[in-house]
């Protein structure tokens, strides 16, 4: 089985800031700089156990910088608050929108003028699946 998701102790995908050649037998002077290794997993993911990835289809969140084909990191561990971008399930279907929760009004807002806000009434079943914490984009 091929595991792609960030795991508890992932091999750090790191960019070393220092390139030091180490004489054998001596403590490495680079040891003090271990914290300076940049690990994208740690930057993007707060809690690997509760973080999942989904792929975006469509342009309803284009003005928030989320485009077709992007990867989103979704953290189920965070409480969804007003203003968060969330992954929601409405009547059993997934959608990414900005959560609006003010003055007794609950709505899911698209970030694209072409899409109307989704007001949530009594009929519809809303379940916030998780909070979108990062968007990963690749250009090539």
């Amino acid at each position: 089985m091929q595991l792609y998701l960030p795991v508890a102790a992932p091999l750090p995908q790191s960019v070393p800031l220092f390139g030091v050649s180490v004489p054998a037998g001596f403590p490495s002077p680079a040891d003090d700089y271990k914290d300076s290794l940049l690990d994208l997993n740690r930057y993007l993911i707060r809690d690997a156990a509760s973080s999942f990835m989904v792929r975006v289809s469509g342009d309803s969140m284009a003005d928030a910088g989320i485009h077709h084909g992007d990867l989103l990191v979704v953290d189920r561990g965070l409480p969804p608050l007003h203003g968060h971008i969330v992954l929601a399930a409405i009547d059993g279907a997934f959608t990414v929108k900005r959560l609006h929760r003010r003055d007794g009004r609950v709505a899911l807002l698209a970030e694209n003028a072409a899409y109307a806000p989704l007001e949530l009434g009594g009929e519809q079943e809303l379940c916030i699946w998780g909070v979108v914490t990062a968007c990963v984009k690749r250009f090539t």
Partner: protein
Amino acid sequence: MSTFALVDGNSFYTSCERVFRPDLAGKPIIVLSNNDGCVVARSAEAKALGIDAFLPYYQVAAQCRRHGVAVFSSNYALYGDMSQRMMQVVARWGIEQEIYSIDESFITLDGIPELRHHAAGLRADVLQRVGIPTCVGIGRSKTLAKLANSVAKTHPRCNGVFAWDWLARDWQEKLLARLAASRVWGVGRRSADKLARLGIHSALDLQRAAPQLIQRHFGIVLERTVAELNGVSCLELDDIAAPRQQLISSRSFARAVSELPTLAAAVTHHATRVGEKLRQQRSVAQLVGVSIRGNPFGDAPPQRGWTVVPLSGPAADTFVLVKAALAGLEAIYLPGHGYKKAGVVLLGISAAQARQPDLFAVSTDPRRAALLQTLDKVNRHYGSGTLRLASEAVSAGWQMRQAQRSPRWTTCWDELPVVS
């Protein structure tokens, strides 16, 4: 006094499927075994429809269609990943943890006040972070924690949490009296029959049995179970870092197989898989077990074959393991029979460094070790089975049938959920 909790996922496989299918909330779901042969997991809704476990799927297929049951092939990539997540979150709520199976782990809660509150917090946390509903059973021994868990699971009023000590003594006894001794953790069917001959039928009988009598007839293991039922903890949490003592790879065929080359292909595949696992945990094995068996649901008495091939020395070399497994297969194979399942198990496993040098062993070729390392690396990187031995013939009709597998939502770039 120790406090143990057993935390397990409710209908784990079906719960995993539901996390990524919000449209299936509250709907009946079943998961089939390898090859879509049998029902191995049912959601609560499917149980309520009266769909029995471990029935061949074809016997319940019509019923499933009638009731709109969602049917899934098993998706072990998904279940394995979700299990790892669940265990990680559960571990944060315990002092120590022992992972007991894909969906169960024991944790210790010594000294934690307000256990009800703590356990409710654990359940809510796992549900929120991973999406899997769980039940928590608490007791002074692992055996009592396991019992308490089954109470938590079957009585909705518990809200998923039950501690054995919350029950007054006479209620505990009433409950134990209604429970067959065979339902107690650690009591096998064979022991249960033997216990019945001694007049021990219920869990209560077992709890009250004289320890000396139990030890004389069954040995120390069951004597410990009796002590554990009386609230005396005898079983510690295992060290989870300990390497597994037994490694198995087996699978059912999509159709009955009677030709030796096809069986050899399957056995080679399984021996290769367990060899990989063995090297991953840096162990060596002393014995290679091979099993083939016929259709247990057919009319003819099922044909079974099982043998154990000892190796000349402990080994982790795929070529050595495969050779032994194939020799074992030839020894048990009977022409003219249809086999439904083949498997390989490694036994007598020990750590690689503890290995005794063998005076008579052929000195190992360092190029062999390098070759195996490359093999493992390629298969890890490009997917299991990219490089394999030629005797594991490709597409020989024995590979897994998974007609209805859900996407590998969490472990495969191409199968991530798509959202708009």
